[in-house]
C-alpha cells in the first residue's frame, strides 16, 4: 500500500470523528459564552507569547520578578510601575505578565502528565481487568478518600528537594527502547507479556522525557547516578499529577469497557490481532477524544489549585512570577481600613479569575454540546 492510499484510508477512518468535531464546533459557536471563553484564552495566549516584549526581563532568569529596592510597604501604581509594586517592591505588572507563562506551564504539564499516566493505567485495568483492575480501583479509591488540595499540601511538603535515581535519563531512554524492542520481537501475537513490556518501555521513555522537561536541575554524576533537584514549583506539579491521574484513568477505564464490547473489537480478536494492535488501532482511537478534551478543559481548575497553594506559601519560591504568589505578597495589606493597598491584590486576582473563567466557560459549553441527551434539541 503506498502512502497516498494509506492517507486516504486514514481520512476515511477519522471521517466520523472530524464530522463530530465540526458539529460540536458549530454548536459551540452558537453559544455566546463559549465565544467569550475562547476570546479570553486567545488573549492570555497572546500575553504569554508576547511576555518578553510586554515586560522585558532584566536578569538572566526571566521568571524572577525585578524589584525596586527592599522596602516592605507596597507602592501605588506610577508611570514606572503601572500596576504598582508589591510588598518587597516586586513589580506587579511584570509578575502578572510572566505569571501567565507560569500558569500555562503548570496547567499543560500537569494535565499532560496526569493524562498520560491515566491512559496507560486505565488501558491496562480496563482491557485486562481482573487483578490489575482491582488494584487500580482500590488505589484510586484511596486517593479519592482525600480532599484534593489537602493531599497535595501533604505531598508538597513531603517530597524531598533532591530525588536520587540510580539511573540517568539517557539510561532510562535506552532501557525503554530495549524493553520495547524485546517486547515487539518476543512472545506470541496476543501475549500479555509483550504488551506489558512495550508499555513499560514507553513508560520509561516518557519518564525520562518528563524529567528532562521539568525545569529542575539535573546532575549526571559518574556511575550514572542521577539526582533531580525539584524546584518548589516542580513539587507542586508532581503533587497535582499524583492527585489528578485517578480521574482520567477511571474515565479511560470506563470508555474501554464500553468499546471492548463492540463488534469490531470482537472481529479484530477473531482475525487474530495482537493485544497491542487492538488497543492502539481499534480501542484507543474510538475512546480517547472525549477524555482528551475533558482533560484539557481541566487546566483552569489546576491553575486555580496551584494558585491556592502559592497563596498559602507552598508554591513558587519567593520572587517567582506566579499569580498566587503575587496575592500572597498582599496578605499583610488586605484588612487595611480604606483599602489603601487595593492594587496589591486586585490585579493579580483578576488575572487568575479571568483565566479560570475562560476555561470554565469553554468547558461548560463543551459539556452541554457533548451531552447526547441535551444537545440535539
Amino acid at each position: 500500500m503506498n502512502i497516498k492510499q494509506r492517507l486516504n484510508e486514514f481520512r476515511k477512518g477519522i471521517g466520523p470523528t472530524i464530522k463530530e468535531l465540526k458539529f460540536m464546533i458549530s454548536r459551540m459557536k452558537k453559544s455566546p459564552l463559549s465565544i467569550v471563553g475562547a476570546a479570553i484564552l486567545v488573549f492570555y495566549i497572546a500575553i504569554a507569547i508576547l511576555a518578553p516584549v510586554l515586560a522585558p526581563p532584566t536578569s538572566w532568569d526571566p521568571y524572577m520578578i525585578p524589584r525596586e529596592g527592599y522596602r516592605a510597604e507596597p507602592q501605588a501604581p506610577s508611570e514606572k510601575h503601572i500596576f504598582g509594586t508589591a510588598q518587597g517592591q516586586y513589580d506587579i505588572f511584570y509578575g502578572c505578565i510572566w505569571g501567565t507563562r507560569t500558569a500555562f506551564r503548570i496547567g499543560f504539564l500537569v494535565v499532560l502528565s496526569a493524562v498520560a499516566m491515566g491512559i496507560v493505567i486505565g488501558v491496562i485495568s480496563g482491557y485486562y481487568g481482573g487483578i490489575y483492575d482491582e488494584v487500580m480501583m482500590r488505589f484510586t479509591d484511596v486517593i479519592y478518600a482525600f480532599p484534593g488540595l489537602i493531599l497535595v499540601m501533604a505531598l508538597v511538603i513531603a517530597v524531598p528537594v533532591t530525588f536520587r535515581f540510580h539511573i540517568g535519563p539517557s539510561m532510562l531512554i535506552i532501557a525503554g527502547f530495549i524493553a520495547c524492542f524485546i517486547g515487539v520481537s518476543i512472545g506470541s501475537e496476543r501475549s500479555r507479556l509483550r504488551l506489558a513490556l512495550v508499555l513499560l518501555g514507553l513508560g520509561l521513555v516518557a519518564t525520562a522525557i518528563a524529567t528532562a522537561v521539568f525545569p529542575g536541575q539535573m546532575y549526571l554524576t559518574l556511575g550514572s547516578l542521577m539526582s533531580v533537584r525539584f524546584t518548589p514549583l516542580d513539587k507542586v506539579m508532581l503533587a497535582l499529577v499524583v492527585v489528578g491521574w485517578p480521574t482520567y484513568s477511571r474515565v479511560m477505564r470506563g470508555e474501554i469497557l464500553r468499546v471492548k464490547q463492540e463488534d469490531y473489537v470482537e472481529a479484530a480478536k477473531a482475525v487474530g490481532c495482537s493485544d497491542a494492535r487492538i488497543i492502539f488501532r481499534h480501542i484507543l482511537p474510538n475512546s480517547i477524544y472525549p477524555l482528551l478534551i475533558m482533560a484539557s478543559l481541566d487546566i483552569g481548575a489546576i491553575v486555580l489549585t496551584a494558585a491556592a497553594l502559592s497563596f498559602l506559601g507552598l508554591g513558587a519560591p519567593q520572587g517567582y512570577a506566579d499569580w498566587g504568589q503575587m496575592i500572597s505578597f498582599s496578605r499583610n495589606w488586605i484588612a487595611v481600613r480604606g483599602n489603601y493597598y487595593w492594587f496589591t491584590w486586585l490585579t493579580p486576582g483578576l488575572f487568575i479569575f479571568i483565566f479560570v473563567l475562560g476555561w470554565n466557560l469553554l468547558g461548560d459549553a463543551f459539556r452541554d454540546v457533548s451531552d447526547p441527551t441535551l444537545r440535539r434539541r
Partner: protein
Amino acid sequence: MGLRAYIIRRLLLMIPTLIGVTLLIFGVTQLFSPYARASIYMTSPAQYRDVDLIIAKYHLDESFLIQYKTWLEELLRGNLGISKSLDQPVVKVLLKRFPASLELVIFSLPITIFLGIYLGVKSAVHRDKAIDHVTRTVSIIGWSLPTFWLAILLLAALYAQTGWFPPERLGSAANAVVRSVDFVRYTGLNTIDGLLNGQLWITLDALRHLVLPVTTLTIVQIALIIRVMRSSMLEALNKGYMVTARAKGLSESAVINKHARRNALIPVVTVSGILAAGMLTGVVITETVFALHGLGEFAAFAATQLDIAAVLGFALLSGVVFVFANLIVDIAYAYVDPRIRLG
C-alpha cells in the same frame, strides 16, 4: 436487601478504604529519613541527643510492615506526634481547633444546599429565560473565583471599606469574656456557648464575625449544587411522568415540586460527597484569610513551617472525615432511591 443490610455492607466496605487512607499517609512519611521521622516524636530540640533511642522505640529503621504496625498502634493511642510549629501534641491542637471549623461548616452547609437546590430548580424551570442566564452566570463565576481572592474582595468591601464584618472569630471585648473563668465552654462553638451562658451579645458578635467566611464558602460551593440540580431537573422535566402529571390536571406547582424536583434530587445527593471535600479544602483557605484559628488555618500555617506531623495529622483527619461523609451520602442515597439497595 433492606436498608439495614445495605448499611452494614457499606460499613464493612469502609474498612479497607480506611486502611488504605492510613497506608497512604504512612507511605508519605516513608519519603523521609528515619531521623526526620524521629523528629515527629521529639518534644524539644534537646532530645536530638536521644534520636537513636527514639528510632529504636518506634522501630523507625525496621521493615515497612513493622513500622506501619507501630505507627498504627500509636495512632490508635491518639499519638500523632508533636507539632513543631506550635510545640504541642498534634491531637491536642486538632481537638482544640476543631470547633472553629465546625462552626463555619454548620452555617455554610445548609445555606449552600437549600439555596443551591432552589436556584437550580428555578433555573431549569425557566430555561433560557433571564433568571436561568443570571443563575448560570453567577454559578460559573462562583466556580471560577479563587476562594482566597473572593475572601479578600469581601473583606475589602465589607470590612476595610465599611467596617461592618470584621475578621477573626470574636471582637476583643467578647474574646475577653469568652476567655474568662466564668464563661463555660460547653461546645466550643461561640454561637451556642453564648446562648448557653445567657450572653446573647456574644452569639451576635460571633455571628457577625461569621458572615464573611460563611458567604465565601457558600458562593464557592453553591455553583456545584446549582449546576447539578439544574441539569438533573432539566432531565426530569422531559420525562414521560411529567406529561402524565399534567394530563391528570395537577397544578403546575405540584407537577414541579412533587414530580420533577423529587426525582431530580437524587444526583444532588450523590455530589454532596464532592461538596464535603470542597468544604474541607475551602475551610483551609477561608480560615487563613479571615484568621479564624481553626483546623484549616493550623494546617496551612504548619505546612509553611514544614511541620510534617501536623500536616499529615490534618490530612489523615480530613481523609477520615471525608470517608465518613461519603458513607453518610451513600446511606442517604440508598434511603432516597430504593433501587440502589436492590442492586
